[in-house]
């Protein structure tokens, strides 16, 4: 036996006892992937990498942070930002990483909406994605409370108070969430405990998300199933290299924020110590919550005996819950919007609607902004509850290609696709 054979022997010795190498070979090296994935398929793996970055920076931050109402603010503003070696870097990466995470996942989600990735047989994969989004929101919200600035305190107050809208037991639930009679030290402590826990729950759900993905493999820009051998290529090296390129580009964007505009996405008010006796003039959440906040604040009217507050809270949660039903609300058999002339237009109207909601959420709900918010909220629900079922029913889809390889190999030039910039 030559020396060079040792590693190979060691690998197979280990693999017979714990098949990690077989597993990696199978899931990465051989894993057959549609040959036509565009860069829109990079965002899932990018999100996964940001998750790792968040956990790494978070663990270091936790070594210097003090979860107490009298000390939390200083442990961040003084100790971590000024005294701890590279503490500023850890914090700014963690802070902007949260924004980047949401940006990537929103793109990832809208990719799914465009290419119909939520349709059979990927419904459970889609559900797991929504669960990931919900878990991310909980994590981000609780993390935002930890610095104990004015926005931390008042965001915690407003959001926990949403639960008081629940009939009969609402107030008890809020007291229970607080561990007191207002947001205070017990609240901060439990949020810290959960903020540390949740990312690991997310890791677990990401695993399930990937298991579900690997059952049927990725969807693709054409939205048709793979039929021939040559429709697929092995994941490695083709998509590992494509993911790596995307990662490089993404890290540049990330670094620009961290090093040149670390507070651009944040709220100046959170650099003011929390004061439970003074509400800031304007309470606004971080950008990734703005559309939901707009929906919440658009409901200013009671319906029969149901108070506006309860309707607003229900509409806000409902806006996300609707996504679970999307695979059935969308009645079209065709996945990709590329072959759905009407849905393709409506899709972009919906994207604009979400951006409008985000803009409304950043402004005081008064005068014409309130009206725009109400119209945009109504349209949001109209899109899912009326347009999706109806369009699938009367739209006449364009003819689907026979197979992926026929479409990408035998056609002289791929069809021009307005706006999505799919680079295949």
């Amino acid at each position: 036996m030559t020396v060079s054979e040792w590693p190979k022997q060691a690998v197979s010795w280990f693999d017979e006892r714990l098949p990690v190498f077989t597993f990696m070979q199978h899931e990465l090296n051989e894993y057959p992937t549609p040959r036509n994935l565009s860069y829109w398929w990079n965002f899932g793996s990018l999100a996964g990498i940001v998750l790792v970055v968040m956990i790494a920076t978070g663990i270091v931050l936790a070594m210097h942070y003090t979860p107490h109402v009298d000390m939390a603010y200083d442990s961040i503003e003084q100790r971590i930002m000024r005294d701890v070696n590279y503490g500023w870097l850890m914090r700014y990466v963690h802070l902007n990483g949260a924004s980047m995470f949401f940006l990537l996942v929103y793109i990832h989600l809208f990719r799914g909406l465009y290419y119909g990735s939520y349709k059979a047989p990927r419904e459970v994969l889609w559900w797991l994605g929504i669960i990931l989004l919900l878990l991310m929101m909980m994590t981000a919200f609780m993390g935002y409370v930890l610095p104990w600035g004015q926005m931390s305190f008042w965001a915690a107050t407003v959001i926990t108070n949403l639960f008081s809208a629940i009939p009969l037991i609402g107030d008890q639930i809020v007291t229970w969430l607080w561990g007191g009679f207002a947001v205070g030290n017990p609240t901060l402590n439990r949020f810290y405990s959960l903020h540390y826990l949740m990312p690991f729950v997310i890791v677990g759900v990401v695993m399930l998300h990937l298991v579900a993905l690997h059952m049927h493999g990725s969807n693709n820009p054409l939205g048709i199933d793979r039929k021939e051998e040559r429709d697929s290529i092995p994941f490695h090296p083709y998509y590992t290299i494509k993911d790596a390129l995307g990662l490089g580009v993404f890290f540049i964007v990330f670094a620009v924020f961290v090093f040149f505009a670390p507070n651009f996405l944040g709220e100046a008010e959170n650099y003011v110590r929390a004061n439970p006796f003074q509400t800031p003039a304007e309470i606004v959440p971080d950008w990734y919550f703005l559309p939901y906040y707009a929906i919440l604040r658009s409901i200013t009217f009671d319906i029969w005996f149901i108070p506006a507050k309860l309707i607003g809270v229900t509409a806000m949660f409902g806006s996300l819950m609707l996504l679970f039903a999307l695979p059935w609300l969308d009645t079209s058999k065709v996945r990709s919007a590329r072959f759905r002339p009407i849905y393709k237009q409506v899709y972009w109207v919906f994207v604009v609607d979400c951006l409008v909601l985000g803009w409304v959420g950043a402004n005081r709900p008064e005068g014409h902004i309130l009206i725009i918010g109400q119209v945009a909220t109504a349209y949001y629900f109209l899109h899912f509850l009326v347009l999706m079922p109806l369009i699938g029913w009367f739209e006449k889809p364009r003819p689907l290609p026979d197979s992926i390889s026929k479409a990408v190999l035998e056609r002289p030039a791929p069809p021009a696709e307005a706006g999505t910039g799919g680079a295949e």
Partner: protein
Amino acid sequence: MSDTVESSASGAPGAADGGEEGETRRDFLLLATTAFGAVGAAFAIWPFVDSMNPSADVLALSSIEVDLSPIAKGQRITVKWRGAPVFIEHRTQAQIDAARKDDKADLIDPQLDKDRAKRPEWLIMVGICTHLGCIPLGQKSGQPKGEWGGWFCPCHGSHYDTSGRIRKGPAPKNLPIPEYEFLSDTVVRIG
């Protein structure tokens, strides 16, 4: 007990007569054990849930005494009770009259002024907007007091009247009245 042993002994080799009876008995035992386990598990969850409720040290801070003598007529002060602000107002006769007159107005959360103030000249309320928990303005001079001269919540625009009742805006309820008791003419215990 002996019963079980007997039947399982006769049922075990798959005897046609004892088999069926053995199965139902086993099913019953399985069901009963599972149900018992489930109830036990449900009870075991309660300490975890209840541990998140306000603890004894938090509850211990839950009553305060306030000296009312320095508060002039028409003046409003804020005291801290259980981590939350409590508004105390020494109302003028004009304010009391305005509040009483509005008893008959079209109220969102109907309540008589006399049910909101044990002594009409002292209005004592938790200063937390019943919409989403902001602190309404109006305690300090110069702050907006809303259309009814009471309090105004800037977060989403709720107006409260001189009795702290919600009159306009998204808040569903009047400002809450804490439990309180006058220990003397000038000392009140809240909580």
